[in-house]
């Protein structure tokens, strides 16, 4: 049953904060860091104005923010936090604990470059740095997608019992104001539902221990359980997304395929820059070129089989990472994409490209040039096995 649409214009941070107000989580410990600062700022104003009854905890660091979120979640609360960049890095130890304890926590991540050199602008080095922590990761192209992913995050998390990161690009998405279609408060509340944990520390009728020490004989079995939950979460993500689509009219999969039906040259990308790739794609399609875009929404779990299937028939792929992982091999997403293609016994040319680090612009013209290189077979790399876009040589 489609819900009533509220037309608004909001920044990405306002969009996330609006979803949080509608969800009304029980506990939100947070520490400010650019560019996600506005999210806890808006939430604390909601608390002050009585719009939510969230327990907002102004902790002294991100290490404490995630620790307090874990504690609240284990105690039985619907708990979340927000951060960026160095803040996420400071949570790294706790990120693993949240997933290992199988806690349904949501983290609104506003992607920003990691130091150093110190830089406050958009790139994915924070999210990519946390890709192997047992968290589901959803990436958004727009404010609308950030809002929608936030509305879906607790549903996914509480079913799978793994924490979820809702990611959007710093400033580009978080601070730029776009038109957005919101759901009514009641529709979001009904969609998200009431959180009823099976087991929780404050349940006096069933005393429990959380996060126990696991000696050598248990550790691998515990990790194996998380691995299965992560793999299986694809089904839940798709089911929740389908239900959300019926409510909102906005359909989401593991990734978006744009002009991919007969594409021979494809850009695979995540986040806000997908818009520039789609514009370039439209321009080249008007000239009859068989180009397409795949925009990854769900990076964790990595949709390896599904991506390989979607890339069948593609001759040349640009795998574009907004993060440098210093692997000496390729960008982080490009490495995983190549592994996915290898497993599917597919051997298209894959050009790994690093773009947009520390907020460096990437334009539609840049994307056209990338497609032209793919079509001309200009795939050579100098000195390292992947290519930097718009770096001064």
């Amino acid at each position, binding site marked *: 049953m489609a819900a009533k649409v509220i037309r608004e214009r909001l920044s990405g941070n306002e969009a996330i904060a609006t979803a949080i107000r509608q969800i009304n989580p029980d506990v939100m410990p947070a520490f400010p860091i650019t560019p996600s600062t506005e999210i806890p700022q808006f939430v604390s104003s909601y608390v002050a104005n009585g719009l939510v009854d969230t327990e907002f905890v102004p902790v002294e660091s991100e290490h404490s923010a995630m620790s307090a979120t874990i504690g609240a979640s284990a105690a039985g609360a619907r708990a979340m936090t927000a951060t960026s960049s160095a803040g996420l890095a400071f949570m790294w130890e706790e990120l693993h604990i949240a997933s290992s304890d*199988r806690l349904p926590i949501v983290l609104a991540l506003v992607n920003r470059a990691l130091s150093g050199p110190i830089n406050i602008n958009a790139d994915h080095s924070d999210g990519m740095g946390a890709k192997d922590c047992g968290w589901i990761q959803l990436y958004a192209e727009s404010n609308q997608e950030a809002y929608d992913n936030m509305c879906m995050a607790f549903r996914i998390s509480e079913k799978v019992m793994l924490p979820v990161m809702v990611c959007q690009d710093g400033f580009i998405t978080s601070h730029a104001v776009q038109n957005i279609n919101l759901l009514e408060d009641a529709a979001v509340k009904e969609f998200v539902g009431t959180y009823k944990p099976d087991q929780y520390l404050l349940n006096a009728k069933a005393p429990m*221990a959380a996060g*126990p020490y696991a*000696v050598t004989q*248990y550790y691998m079995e515990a990790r*194996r*359980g998380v691995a299965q939950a992560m793999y299986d979460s694809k089904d839940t993500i798709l089911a929740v997304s389908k239900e959300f689509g019926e409510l909102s009219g906005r359909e989401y999969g593991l990734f978006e395929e744009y002009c991919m039906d007969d594409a021979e040259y494809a850009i695979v990308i995540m986040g806000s820059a997908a818009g520039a790739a789609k514009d370039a794609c439209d321009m080249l399609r008007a000239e009859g070129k068989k180009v397409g875009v795949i925009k990854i929404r769900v990076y964790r779990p990595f949709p390896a089989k599904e991506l390989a299937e979607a890339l069948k028939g593609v001759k040349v792929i640009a795998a574009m990472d907004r993060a440098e992982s210093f692997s000496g091999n390729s960008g982080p997403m490009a490495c995983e994409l190549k592994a996915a293609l290898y497993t599917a016994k597919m051997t298209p040319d894959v050009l790994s490209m690093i773009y947009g680090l520390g907020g460096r612009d990437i334009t539609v013209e840049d994307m056209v040039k990338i497609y032209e290189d793919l079509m001309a077979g200009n795939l050579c790399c100098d000195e390292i096995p992947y290519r930097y876009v718009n770096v001064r040589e």
Partner: protein
Amino acid sequence: MKTDISKQGLDVKWKDMTVGCNIVAPGGSVDFHTGEWRVDTPKFIEEKCKQCLLCAPVCPDSCIPVTDGKRAGFDLDHCKGCGICAKVCPFGAIEMMKGVKK
């Protein structure tokens, strides 16, 4: 749902472990036999024992039951084989069996 801690022993398969390793059961440590971790095992030599009871209070895991002022054999369910009891015994009434797990 209450965790049956006796089913979370060292041979538990990954699919049978509790979600998040949570243990929903008060006092679960009684039924969780950490003695499985033992490498060396204490042996009680009753004829040498003078019932001085120096051993019982120094055991970190309450593995030496005392009834009516007298100790009996070991309760090995939680004994890690640390050997403190053998060390404090003045009469050689406790021997550590090296490499014997049971």
